[in-house]
């Protein structure tokens, strides 16, 4: 094997390692990024359909029953979520605030500008096709989270 062949092989290995390192960096960003997501429980109109605020509800993210968020009508709470894909589990409670009337599960995927959007709890409860609404505290955005 010539010296140039060894050098070429060495550089190829170095480039592969460098690419792997960059790949790991992006992967770490993807799985470790923390999003602060606003969850809004106000009456909202999305795509011409009106969804009324839920009287009492609890929300858990990814089945973490230890930290449920409790909502009353017109509440807006913030939930920190690590990574982009999550499962929201909403328990709609009765007038007594304890009996579970209905449970809705919804998978969501956040995008990079998650701060520009918030999740409408009434839309999740009504199993609406679109649950993201613009965050009034953020600058207007052209694109919407899916």
């Amino acid at each position, binding site marked *: 094997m010539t010296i140039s062949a060894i050098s070429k092989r060495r550089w190829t290995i170095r480039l592969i390692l460098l690419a792997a*390192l960059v790949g*790991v*960096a992006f992967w*770490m*960003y993807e*799985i*470790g*990024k*923390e*999003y602060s997501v606003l969850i809004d429980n106000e009456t909202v109109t999305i795509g011409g359909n009106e969804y009324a605020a839920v009287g009492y509800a609890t929300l858990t993210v990814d089945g973490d029953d230890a930290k449920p968020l409790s909502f009353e009508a017109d509440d807006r709470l913030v939930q920190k979520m*690590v990574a982009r894909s999550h499962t929201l589990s909403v328990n709609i409670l009765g007038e007594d605030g304890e009996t579970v009337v209905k449970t809705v599960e919804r998978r969501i995927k956040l995008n990079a500008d998650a701060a520009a959007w918030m999740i409408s709890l009434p839309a999740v409860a009504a199993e609406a096709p679109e649950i993201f609404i613009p965050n009034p505290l953020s600058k207007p955005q052209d694109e919407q989270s899916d």
Partner: protein
Amino acid sequence: MSRTNDVAAKPLFSKMENFKHFLISNSVPIIFLGLSAFAIPLSGFSAEYLVQEMITRLARNSFLVLSLLVPILAGMGLNFGMVLGAMAGQIGLIFVTDWAVVGIPGLILASIISMPIAAFLGYICGNVLNRAKGREMVTSYILGFFINGIYQFVVLYMMGWILPITSPTLVLSRGYGIRNAINLTGMRHALDNAISLSIDLGSETTRFAISIPVSTFLLIAGFCVFIVWFRRTKLGQDMRAIGQDMAAADSAGIAVERTRVIAIVISTVLAAFGQIIFLQNIGTMNTYNSHDQTGMFSIAALLIGGATVSKASIGNVFVGVALFHLMFVVSPMAGKELIGQAQLGEYFRVFVSYGIIAVALVLHAWKRQQERERSRRGLRGEA
């Protein structure tokens, strides 16, 4: 022939001489063991508290101290330039905190970001040290101050202005520059708690519960295995040869300067990782000061463990970290008990920290002189 047999039959040094040599060789750890034995009862700390503190501090500091071993192997002395790596680690943490990447992924991402910065700074440091052979320690110490100036310029003026840092929790209210203290809440104990073990050794009457950050110790163990393996590689053997005799290594065809640069690059990159592990344990980063004392404290710990400027082992690291931090923990309380004021106890802590380094270096110089005299006597057959 008979003359050779005579020499073999008679030991080169007497038992007393060997015992004296043992005491001189281990004088630093022995002195600090004595000081600890004196200070522990004075401090009034419980055994549970001290054991827990030692475990925490071993996990927190061992990686940093281990990063000093490679340059010692290459005969470059104690790498005060490890603060360059610490700065690189902190830059990685600033970016990761701005991007809100948390947990273990945040630590890995910070390490990946810091790696090229540390390698670049290590390359600069290695080349500077090649121009100051024989005066590596003082040169790397001063180089640390110089790079600290550049670090402060980057962090205080370029971040938020040229370098995109947007988080209002990081950027100063004027719009650029990083705040003095950064909260690493998302990464706090991320590595320590990944695998942790709680042991309760207490009885009904006594409480003795300790928590062990197993994952951090596993990483440190992996690093130790790496060092043992590295010493056996071609590069490791080259470094050892350079450490023993640079001119002979050069004559043997070893690329001395290149190998020395590699030693410093490895040490600096590992110091960056060490600083990230250190800060995830602390949970708060002091942007402009956290790296300042990293070199001093790590070197002090290694010296207290019985290492010298020219020889250090993995065992020295752990003994040194345990002894140094034992003194670090007990000295303020011992000082308070002795002098009667808490503030004076705090001064006592600082006095002990720097005093340790001074004593260790003085003892090292004395030991070297004794070694020289001993070998001279051995050659003359006077022992």
